[in-house]
């Protein structure tokens, strides 16, 4: 990992402290809830092949969740305001994912995807406890944890960053690691200020 040593430990510590400060619930309960929801969405598909619709529903749901969590992030994380895309990517990967999902992630620029793209990688995924995807359309096309991408994009959108987050690797599909590609598209001219 090619990262500035002075920055990563600080952000990681902030994420850990933020997680410890908050109320916590069982990761198993969280995973079971999410699993029941995804299962219901798949069961509701009019066409069994239309798995992309579930991906989109999970993303939309995540955006709504992210737009609510960002306020708590701003108030409780202790992280400084992000002024650059790199700082925002750090905030997501090293503070946000740790604070809310208790996930240890790494972040690095993804040069091949453009100057404002970052690869966020994490080995453990609390949403995917107890989950195996069957061979077929689900394993090939479902990004089971796509809600995380929506949360990230939704939260960033509330603080003025236009971003797209997409899964590019998933351990449920047999990949070695979970990887989200975070691409910044620009900034809103006016940003929301969370006053409290």
């Amino acid at each position, binding site marked *: 990992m090619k990262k500035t040593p002075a920055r990563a430990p600080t952000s990681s510590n902030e994420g850990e402290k933020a997680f410890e400060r908050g109320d916590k619930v069982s990761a*198993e309960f969280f995973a079971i809830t999410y699993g029941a929801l995804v299962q219901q969405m798949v069961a509701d598909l009019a066409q069994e092949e239309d798995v992309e619709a579930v991906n989109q529903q999970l993303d939309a*749901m995540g955006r709504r969740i992210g737009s*609510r969590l960002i306020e708590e992030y701003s108030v409780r994380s202790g992280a400084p305001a992000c002024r650059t895309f790199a700082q925002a990517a750090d905030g997501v990967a090293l503070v946000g994912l740790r604070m809310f999902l208790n996930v240890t992630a790494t972040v690095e620029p993804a040069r091949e995807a453009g100057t404002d793209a970052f690869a966020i990688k994490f080995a453990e995924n609390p949403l995917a406890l107890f989950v195996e995807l069957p061979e077929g359309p689900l394993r090939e096309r479902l990004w089971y944890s796509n809600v995380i991408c929506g949360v990230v994009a939704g939260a960033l959108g509330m603080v003025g960053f236009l971003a797209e987050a997409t899964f590019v690797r998933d351990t449920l599909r047999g990949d070695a690691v979970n990887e989200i590609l975070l691409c910044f598209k620009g900034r809103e001219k006016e940003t929301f200020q969370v006053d409290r």
Partner: protein
Amino acid sequence: MGHNGLVSESVAAALNIELISYVVSRQTLHGEDGPSASPENEVELNTHKDLEGLGLLLGLRLSERLLYRQPSFGEWTPSGVTHFVARTFWKTAFGKKVDRMMHMNDIYFCLIDRSFRWLEGFPKIKGDRTVSTKAVSLSAYAEESVTKDEAASTRDERLGDMPIHKDVLIYTVGILKGLIRVMYPSGPLAIHANINNENETHFVLDFRSTTT
């Protein structure tokens, strides 16, 4: 796995509210799309069934995880069930214990949550109004006029497909039913929930033989 088995309570609460919203909006959509659209009361009843059904599924699955680590064998007593719910389940799902518990003769229990987490962000109950959900039972469905009246009253509260207090209560009662049935499989049991005008949420576990 190095994971310590916990996530933020905020994200779990947000996810559960989204699940409830999904069920509510899905029923509304299906009701409207049907070739012969369902009467509004029927849509409402289906929403309640789906919410409770999904809650049951969660409760059953959760019981496998929670009870696996319990040393007890055989059936639990009503008092044992209630204490387990009040401490272990509440901590698992809401990150805290229930605020208060009342009981009558170790057969009828009321768990009181002063500020139920999943109703945070919902409007406060005002005046002398209360919200209640009686346990769904076969006999209740037989009383067609009663259930239709009940569905009509909650339908009037709805704004589009946004969840209302009762949806949250029905879903939570479903979870409790799924969880408790594994622990207490054969005895009589009725579960219902209500919100009083002090915005306390009460979950009643009624183990009496005859319930009206």
